[in-house]
């Protein structure tokens, strides 16, 4: 049943994924989400006509809680909490298959990027915390050294996720083959790089 009230809500019971009742109205929140997405990545989610091509080609769709086309559908309806709280936006591998094949020319991959940024901006807890932490650790690394030092990256990531043992063997192998340097290489223009960071969202929180 769809009825029209004053608030954008999606009544999803805690454990049920489907069978939810929607009360929709194009309130300020709904169009705000669309506007912010467009501002961040330039994509108009209303251009999507829900053909499903993106879902069909997405290598990660099978692992997502909602299908890629549903990310857009929810965004069209302005159901912000559901999109930004989904695992889909974090699992997206950024492979751009969807953007390449979408018959409407919608770059869903960029909408995914925008949704992740919005989720962080709104303090919504990432449904895939490991992925969020990895990306964050990566950028912290870039901010600190200007380059990524794979050994510290992996080590610190593992500390943050408390997952010490997976891939340890490969790590040791790589180290023995001279692939993981012990000392990070530093960029001289680190101040300049910090400046780039400080102008962006990521600059605010220092790690």
């Amino acid at each position: 049943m769809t009825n029209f009230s004053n608030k954008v809500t999606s009544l999803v019971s805690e454990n049920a994924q489907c069978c939810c009742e929607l009360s929709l109205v194009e309130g300020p929140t709904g169009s705000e989400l669309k506007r912010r997405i467009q501002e961040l990545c330039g994509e108009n989610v209303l251009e999507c006509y829900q053909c499903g091509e993106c879902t069909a080609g997405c290598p990660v769709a099978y692992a997502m809680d909602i299908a890629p086309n549903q990310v857009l559908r929810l965004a069209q309806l302005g159901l912000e909490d559901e999109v930004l709280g989904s695992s889909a936006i974090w699992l997206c591998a950024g492979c751009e298959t969807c953007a390449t094949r979408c018959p409407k020319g919608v770059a869903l991959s960029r909408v995914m990027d925008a949704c992740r940024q919005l989720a962080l901006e709104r303090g919504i807890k990432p449904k895939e915390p490991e992925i969020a932490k990895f990306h964050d650790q990566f950028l912290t690394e870039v901010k600190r050294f200007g380059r990524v030092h794979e050994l510290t990256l992996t080590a610190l990531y593992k500390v943050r996720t408390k997952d010490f043992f997976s891939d340890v063997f490969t790590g040791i192998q790589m180290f023995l083959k001279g692939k993981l340097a012990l000392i990070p290489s530093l960029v001289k223009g680190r101040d300049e790089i910090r400046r780039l960071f400080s102008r962006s969202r990521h600059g605010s929180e220092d790690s």
Partner: protein
Amino acid sequence: MRIGVFVCWCGSNIAKTVDVEKVVEAAREMPGVVYATDYKYMCSEPGQNMIQEAIREHKLDRIVVASCSPRLHEPTFQRCVEAAGLNPYMVEMANIREQCSWVHERTPEATQHAIDLVRMAVAKVAKNEPLSRSKLDITRRALVIGGGVAGIQAALDIADAGYPVVLVERTPSIGGHMAQYDKTFPTLDCAACILTPKMVDCASHPLIEIWSYSEVEEVNGFVGNFEVKIRRRAKSVDESKCTGCGLCLEKCPVKGIPSEFDEGTGTRRAIYRPFPQAVPNKPVIDREHCRYFQTGKCGVCQKICPVGAIDYEQQDQVVTEKFGAIVVATGFDVWRDEQAMAQFGYGKYPDVISSLQFERLMNASGPTDGKIVRPSDGKVPRSIAFISCVGSRDEVHGYPYCSKVCCMYNAKQALLAKDKLHDVQTYVFYMDIRANGKGYEEFVRRAIEEYGANYIRGRVSRVYPDGDQLVVKGADTLLGRPLEVRVDLVVLATAMKPHDDAKELARKLGISTDQYDWFSEAHPKLRPVEVLTDGIYLAGACQYPKDIPDTVAQASGAASKVIGLFSKEAILSEAMTAFVNEDTCVGCGLCAEVCPFGAIDLVEVVDREKSTRDNQVMKTVARVNEGVCKGCGTCAAACRSGSARLRGFDTKQILAEIDALADAALSSKRL
């Protein structure tokens, strides 16, 4: 001079924004105006009666109607005053609806704007002169371009009404796409049973000439009097001798040429007819492949032909013929862009075929005698995936529009495949099912409910081989999941598109095309079979994707337009045409260059100024062919010496309008 002004309310369209009574009051004060009034609907019968009575009562000789656009009602009011004894060109319209009330709020300025428009019209009508239209003869013979079901239907309808028709078809046979199909939706009658009789009727109709293997090269003239240059390509077979026995077809040594008619699913030889029921049923030699033409050695067909019909010396014939009307029925092509379809492997994997190819595989007289088999290994497929909207509704890789017909033929093909191969599992990947015709929705439901077609809502991302099968990677958006099916055959419903040379033909005909190159109709709702050039009509899928019922309806519509034209005694020329003052014309030819209708020729005349009694001096001047001129005024605007002028829009009339506006503006201190 006694001018009458009639201000219309157009219900509330004008009256709610413009103070109509004020306009009437102002009009009464304008120079030459002896009567002014208003009414709710001027175009209605009481409104028109009011105008006619006023003409009689107040002895009006010029009329201004302040209402809507002249595009809509100028003819109405011209007829109205003509019935009251005035020359129809003594009417001017002031457009106070589209150009005033619809674009303004209700303000004093809006009313002032309306008054200004009326003032200008009054100034102009004061300078109007009576004009007349001349009568032109009609050549009562029609040209139909394209011999698909549209062209066939139009030709038969026109000929049945008693007028001769030439049906020009580019390929060796008429029939078009419909001849390629096995059965047609929604009734599943066999295409051959309903089309071939019509093709034969065309061939045997005493008033229809079929010129196959022919093309239009050049079109001149105007409605009632077109002159068309047509190239009749050499068939290398003398049609008057050939009996159509087909002996040559079996002996020609050049085999294996992919058959165009079979969409490459079958082959033909260098001498061929596209299909056994072709009309005309006589072969042609494809000179590009013929060994005789390529190497000078062979001549097998000539030796075998029992009646000596093979004629290697035959030449193309270019003939110029006169016609009164032209029906364009050149149909459509299908999208074949292999690179854009690479995600489906079209052109790369033999078992990925187009729907048109699938039609040939299903056709009882096709290359497989109607057995559905895989092109790669000849095996009967146990599962088939039909993919909709390939290149349609896809602005990135193909066309943004919907091809309109494929939803229905997908259902047809899924149904027929199941009917022919009981064990087959069919999948139809679709975005929407567009089945809005008589019996169409029911047909699709039948394919699903009775024939078990598995409809999956979602586009396909990719098709790739796995062993000897194909994997179709799609999605079911109703479930919100990606999904894969493994099938033996993939059929792509490729978009319908205009022919690559459609624009070229449009240029020859002087008609326009839309952004995709479909031919443009004169009005999308009210004039769907006409184009903006009089005497040329559209039929069938050359205008936009259509199925057979719509195609035939439009073809009959086009035919009745032609019959209506031919049943007139004569046609009237435009009255508002351009003319050239030959005394002042310097013969620069600029007008001839800019005229969009090609109505101006440069001619040699005696220069009256420079000639003496014994010494005739000639000069070049422009001359307007009034039959062709549409009165657009482009020449008048371009002419530097002011010699080209437009009747009804003469310089003095335009200047009178401008003066009236400027005077009013100055006197009311608006300027």
